[in-house]
């Protein structure tokens, strides 16, 4: 069946792995050249998980979540609380905690929100994310309010990284996250190519009909929602371990906006889209921040990109690859 | 005269129309027939201005309207009933009709228009104050036709006008088309049903894969085995 589906560029697992590998190989070179851009790549790889999760909902299930910051926030604050109240700084436990807490949150709100689609779903998610944000923000004595919670460097398998110098620490972080991302990408690819993946696509295309062939669309969406939540929370966990600071900003709606834009930039509905998008987005953002009027630069870039590349980078690349392939076929 | 010449239309890299030509005089009923996907609706949408043809001419009474936006075409006398009705859902059937009259600046004649509509479709009276959303398939069709009549068109384009209407309504509607025609209006219907088309139209055009492959009288068509074969799809 999987061969039966036309395997386009970017939808097979190979291109994804090759792309990630190239980044992992380029990273040290870039870091030597400019540590700042090396750190940007670190951001890029950190966000892949959330974007993959978002794309499962948006690209494959047809639910545009404008509140994905909710789960990044859950992941982030799980880490914050684990450290603040339990003194835990093992990243494995953080990940586990993030996965558990996001599953719980997704199970609580999922059954309600998956009953909505389109802009209503978007707004609903936005509202819930804002609630959580306001709680992080307002319950100062628990969460540290806008000042957030400082966390120390994490430890892997009990090995503390406190003593490393900045660069080494950052390299360890980068390769740890990249390794994790390989696994996450593979799992997501399996999910999308499973019967469940096809069911999601059918719901996206025609929800009424899907219901009438016996798909419990709410149940299917709920599963997708939970998976998506877990993926997003993993980015939350990783990101705060990167900044070593947990603030309500990560749960604010602008973060959700970032998730949406980065995914679309890369190309929704194409498997590799979010992965490409994550890197390119962070590069663009860092570039824009170099200007005093960076908001304007960012705004113009967003508008230009959405207008000029409606399908995202992956779509553009696919079209190019198609042209080259068909050209070569014709030639030889 | 409404004259369509050598119309070409391309949507997302497929040629949908490849040289369609049609002529309708005032007081004439013309049918466009063709199998599903032949391009009937696309021809209509191009005439109305919803699609932008890449090549060709559309003339109303010797005036080329191909560059005009839809609303100016309406002012030139094009009336249109889409195949999927597209009755405005959250205003009443009556408001649907009023709006059409208002947009075509016929609000002063609204009483006459309503009278005419109710003679053709007396059923409409039953659901004048029902919002479009709640109408049944056939009821919507009636409102859609009534609405286009309210623009007092010179040329009326009816896309699959008989589809989904009960036979009794179809009969009455056929008479109405005769009546409309006699008021000096040119009527074009898009039909996939050859029998109905040959019964009401004086002139027939057959479309196949976006091309006009035949035009002539009903008897010509029935005698043209080649075209009939294509229409039968065998």
């Amino acid at each position, binding site marked *: 069946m999987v061969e039966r589906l036309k395997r386009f560029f970017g939808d097979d697992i190979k291109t994804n792995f090759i792309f990630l590998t190239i980044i992992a190989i380029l990273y040290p070179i870039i870091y030597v050249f400019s540590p700042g851009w090396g750190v940007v790549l670190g951001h890029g790889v950190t966000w892949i998980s959330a974007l993959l999760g978002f794309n499962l909902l*948006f690209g494959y299930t047809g639910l545009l979540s404008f509140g994905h910051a909710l789960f990044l926030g859950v992941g982030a604050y799980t880490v914050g609380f684990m450290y603040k109240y339990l003194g835990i700084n093992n990243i494995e436990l953080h990940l586990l905690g993030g996965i558990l807490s996001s599953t719980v949150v997704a199970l609580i709100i999922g059954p309600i929100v998956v009953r909505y689609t389109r802009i209503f779903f978007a707004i609903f998610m936005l509202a819930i994310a804002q609630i959580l944000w306001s709680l992080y923000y307002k319950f100062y004595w628990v969460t540290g309010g806008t000042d957030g919670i400082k966390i120390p460097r994490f430890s892997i398998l009990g090995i503390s990284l406190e003593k490393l110098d900045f660069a080494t620490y950052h390299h360890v972080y980068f390769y740890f996250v990249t390794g994790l991302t390989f696994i996450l990408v593979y799992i997501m690819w399996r999910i999308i190519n499973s019967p469940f993946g096809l069911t999601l696509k059918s719901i996206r295309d025609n929800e009424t009909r899907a219901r009438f062939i016996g798909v419990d669309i709410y149940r299917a969406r709920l599963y997708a929602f939970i998976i998506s939540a877990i993926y997003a929370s993993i980015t939350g966990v990783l990101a705060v371990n990167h900044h070593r600071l947990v603030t309500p900003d990560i749960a604010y709606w602008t973060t959700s906006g970032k998730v949406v834009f980065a995914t679309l930039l890369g190309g929704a509905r194409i498997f590799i889209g979010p992965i490409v998008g994550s890197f390119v987005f962070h590069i663009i953002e860092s570039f824009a921040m170099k200007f005093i009027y960076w908001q304007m630069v960012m705004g113009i870039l967003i508008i230009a990109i959405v207008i000029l590349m409606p399908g995202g980078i992956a779509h553009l690349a696919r079209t190019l690859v198609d042209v080259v392939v068909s050209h070569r076929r014709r030639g030889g | 005269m409404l004259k369509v010449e050598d119309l070409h239309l391309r949507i997302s890299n497929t040629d949908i129309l490849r040289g369609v030509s049609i002529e309708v005089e005032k007081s004439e009923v013309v049918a466009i027939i063709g199998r599903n996907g032949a391009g009937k609706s696309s021809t209509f949408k191009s005439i109305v201005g919803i699609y932008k043809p890449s090549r060709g001419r559309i003339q109303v009474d010797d005036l080329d309207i191909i560059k005009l936006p839809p609303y100016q075409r309406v002012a030139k006398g094009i009336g249109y009933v889409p195949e999927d009705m597209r009755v405005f859902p959250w205003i009443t059937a009556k408001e649907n009709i009023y709006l059409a009259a208002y947009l075509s600046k016929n609000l002063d004649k609204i009483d006459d228009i309503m009278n005419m509509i109710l003679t053709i479709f007396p059923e409409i009276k039953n659901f004048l104050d029902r919002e479009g959303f709640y109408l049944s398939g056939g009821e919507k069709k009636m409102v859609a036709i009534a609405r286009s009549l309210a623009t007092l068109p010179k040329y009326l384009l009816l896309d699959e006008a008989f589809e989904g209407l009960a036979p009794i309504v179809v009969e009455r509607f056929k008479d109405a088309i005769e009546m409309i025609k006699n008021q000096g209006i040119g009527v074009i219907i898009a039909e996939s049903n050859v029998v109905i088309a040959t019964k009401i139209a004086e002139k027939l055009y057959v479309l196949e894969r976006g091309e006009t492959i035949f035009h002539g009288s009903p008897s010509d068509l029935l005698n043209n085995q080649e075209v009939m074969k294509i229409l039968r799809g065998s």
Partner: protein
Amino acid sequence: MHIAGLGKHGEKAWYQYKLIRVYNPRETIDMLEIMDLLVRIYNIFFGASVLFLIAVGLNIIYGVMKIVNLAHPAFFVLGCYTIAGTGMGVMINIFGSSIIPLLITPPLLAAFVVAVSSLLIFPLFLFISGKGDEVQLLITYGLLLIFEDIFRLIWGSEPLRASQPFELAGSLSIGEYLIPVYNIYVIISALVIALILWIFLFKSKSGLLLRASSMDIEMAAALGANVKKVLLLTVLIASFLAGLGGGLFIPSASAMLGMSVEFLVLAFVVVVIGGLGSFLGSLVGAFIVSVLRTITLILFPELELALIYIVAIIILTLKPEGLGGGKKW
């Protein structure tokens, strides 16, 4: 930075407020509590008026063009800046300190300026109408960012004031209570605007056209509606209302950067509660949000923001289309 019109500010100290004594009750404790309540209700009306003026335009654009215009609050803020940054100074130069023209002209000027500037981005709106939700959200979000920096570019980063009408109108004194008269003016204006808008939408032919276009604009075109004109009318009405709102609101506050985003979040909740694209919903929603804000401030300040969203969610759960009813408008 010198702010036009505020140069003369120093001539007036705060205590020179004009006090209008209307009523001087024997002040018992009961009376005080009733007064507290009345002032709160008055505040609720004021808050609701401002929110309504923002949300209604958001709804009109959504209704007709199906665009969730994240940049809409920036129109409102543009109105604020127009007056606070430039307009009020000009008006004072023309009218001096006579109160009536200073109440009336700034909102109109702001509305005019915002409506005219909306023409500049109208092509962008044409482009995104009919595109996917995500495209619209992103492009209007991009616009919002650009607007913020345009404000900074033109008017700088200090908060700007245009308080003269607010000060000239003075306060109304009821017993020991003072309430700013200007806020009453805003409330009444909002009510009048709502009434005019209602008549326009539901009783006029153009209103019928606007509502029909909101359901199927292509069909409206095929019946003879000039689509561009309809869309232009929509954007103009929405931005005009936003500008009017900004111009009305600004004398009671100050124009500052980042304001658009704060208003956006609130306006969004208003729209969700009231129903996307629903005119009446904007009124209802604005009122509910304003009531909630006041109640939480008294009872559970920690939940100030959360409660608004919680109520929005409850309403969405019970009535996905919002309180404005399932029908559009």
